[in-house]
């Protein structure tokens, strides 16, 4: 087969042009942290931004999901994804896309292996009952490893852009606050007291009402289990604290941008507005608010007028238009009424969405809008279409 040189372009799939503001954001950012209330398509938006970035830019992109529920795998049509990065097939992409989910237990284990001063301490920490339960069962143990993991992804040099999907709503803030809390934890006097040699701890126990209370709540045996665990854990203080500082710095880095995802529903917006405020208060750079699930404008425009025109006998009834339409397709009264009801519904939804957008714009960040589409997001192609359709 002979291919004329001039036709080469036809073998490359056409790229839908991106909104300039979206292009700009994806071009500049090295890390995008996605926050938002639950149920507004946050994880889907994170995946879509990752897919668009990998397709339109010669970047190595990683999408990292930290949501305890396994949503991203479904969105990308992958059965399961684990702690390790998994490559995603992207036809015609300029860059590449990997995806990973943070497995709390595995990430803690990695951290202990990396920071333990010696093999004996490492094995004792990994084998400690308290450690096992703490790392595998409790929500708040998740927060810190998330930040460790995104720091790793950025610092490894393997990725040009890391898109991070955080847990819904306020849980995102506890992730962002985790490095600072880790630092404070190691520097707290209480930890030092608790992990002091047994003899002096007993003296402290006797003399401090604080320990009397702690002892009565938790029981002496549990308290000493905790002490043993944290004594072991403290051997890692140096490296863990210095990393926590660097992780904290990365979260405030100018190349780290924050995106809040919302829908036009009042409850979602209330939560998204709160997140916007809290991100700013922490000094993070809010790059965009993605507003999902807007009614398609091509359907919404003129809906109220079309509803009027559909109602027979209405004084505003457009006789000329109706008769032309009737010539095309004679409508039964039932059909006419059903269509009018549909038009009124779309008009109501559109009004509500317009009011919501006006409020979102007052938050002062650029707004990327996404119209709700028929069908579900089940594969990379639909994610790409969703991301490419984002408009300011």
């Amino acid at each position, binding site marked *: 087969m002979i291919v004329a040189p001039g036709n080469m372009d036809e073998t490359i799939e056409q790229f839908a042009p991106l909104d300039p503001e979206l292009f700009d954001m994806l071009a500049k950012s090295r890390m995008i942290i996605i926050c938002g209330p*639950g149920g507004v398509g946050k994880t889907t938006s994170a995946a879509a931004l990752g897919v668009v970035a990998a397709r339109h830019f010669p970047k190595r992109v990683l999408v990292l999901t930290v949501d*305890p*529920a396994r*949503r991203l795998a*479904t*969105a990308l049509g992958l059965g399961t994804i684990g702690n390790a990065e998994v490559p995603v097939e992207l036809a015609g992409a300029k860059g590449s896309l990997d995806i990973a989910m943070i497995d709390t237990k595995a990430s803690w284990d990695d951290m202990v292996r990396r920071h333990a001063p010696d093999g004996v301490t490492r094995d004792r920490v990994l084998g400690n*009952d308290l450690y096992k*339960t*703490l790392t595998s*069962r*409790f*929500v708040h143990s998740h927060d810190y490893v998330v930040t460790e993991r995104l720091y790793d992804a950025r610092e490894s040099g393997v990725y040009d852009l890391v898109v991070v999907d955080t*847990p819904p*709503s*306020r*849980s995102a803030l506890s992730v962002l606050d985790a490095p600072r*809390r880790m630092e404070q*934890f190691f520097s*707290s006097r*209480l*930890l030092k007291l*608790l992990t002091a040699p047994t003899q002096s701890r007993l003296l402290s126990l006797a003399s401090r*009402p*604080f320990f009397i*209370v702690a002892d*009565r*709540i*938790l*029981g002496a*045996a*549990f308290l000493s*289990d*905790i002490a043993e665990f*944290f004594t072991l854990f403290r051997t890692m203080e140096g490296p863990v604290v210095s990393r926590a500082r660097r992780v904290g710095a990365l979260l405030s880095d100018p190349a780290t941008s924050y995106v809040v995802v919302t829908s036009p529903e009042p409850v979602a917006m*209330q*939560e998204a507005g709160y997140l916007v405020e809290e991100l700013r208060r922490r000094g993070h750079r809010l790059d965009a608010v993605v507003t999902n699930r807007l009614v398609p404008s091509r*359907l919404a425009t*003129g*809906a109220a007028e*079309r509803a009027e025109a*559909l109602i027979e006998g209405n004084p505003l009834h457009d006789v000329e238009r109706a008769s032309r*339409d009737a010539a*095309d*397709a004679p409508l039964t009264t039932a*059909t006419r009424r*059903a269509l009018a*009801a*549909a038009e009124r*519904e*779309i008009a*109501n*939804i559109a*009004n*509500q969405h317009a*009011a919501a957008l006006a409020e979102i714009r007052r938050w002062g960040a650029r707004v990327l809008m996404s119209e*709700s589409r*028929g*069908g*579900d997001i*089940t594969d990379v192609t639909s994610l790409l279409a969703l991301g490419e359709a984002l408009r300011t």
Partner: protein
Amino acid sequence: MARLAAGEGKRVLACEMDDKGSLAAYLGRDDLTFSPVEVSPNLYAMAMNTEDSLREYIRLFLRVPVLGSLTPLARIFDFVANAAPAVKEILAVGKLCYEVRERHYDIVIVDSEASGHFVAQVSAPDALATLVRIGIVADQTKWMSNLLHDPEVSTVLAVVTPEEMPVVETIELRDRLATATPIDFAGVLVNRMPAALVDAELLATVAPTSGHLATSVQVGEWLSERRSNAELHARRLADALELGNVETIAEAPAGTHSPERITDHLVGEMRRILDEHA
């Protein structure tokens, strides 16, 4: 649900676990505190706060004289919350179990945290029991587990919107709950089911056309597709959970801005469901 139960004459406590403030809005209040307030006859509402829960716990059970200022308590809390696993979770769940045990209310309705966190919270007493074998906490976890595991006392109701991801998550939630704790699972309530305004068959009778009517037909198709997708997801959920049917609540009419109006709508829908079963 709390409003409905209170309307039926029950003494109700409603509690929001994740401090979002939306329960307050739906019940027509600016905010809620740890101390329950009567928001309407027989309906009490509170917002969970683990630090207040610890304070109450110390006062009720340890009989330690009120700890002077807040500083030492805050420090204890800091220690407890950061160093001891499950304590935050147990303080939250414990407060609710306490209200149930003391029979202060006929029914306690909890707006829990998002699905991923909920499992950790509700199974905290079980998890802690394996860690702490003696001491007050150990004794405390037993009665909590007993209340949570008794299907006559406690049950979980999942609420889901009829969309793909929430449905997948709800199926996962049920499976994860089953492995983490023997708590009863009552079923699911599908919320925000779009209204069936236009019948797809009716639309199909409209001959191909152009102009305004064509747009109207597209509007009809869009709404009808939205409805049929939602029905499909509700059915998938019912099949996966082996529930012959799921109860659905219609979406509030577009433009229902006020949270209180949304509550009115939900109460009406729940009454309809109850009447259908009566």
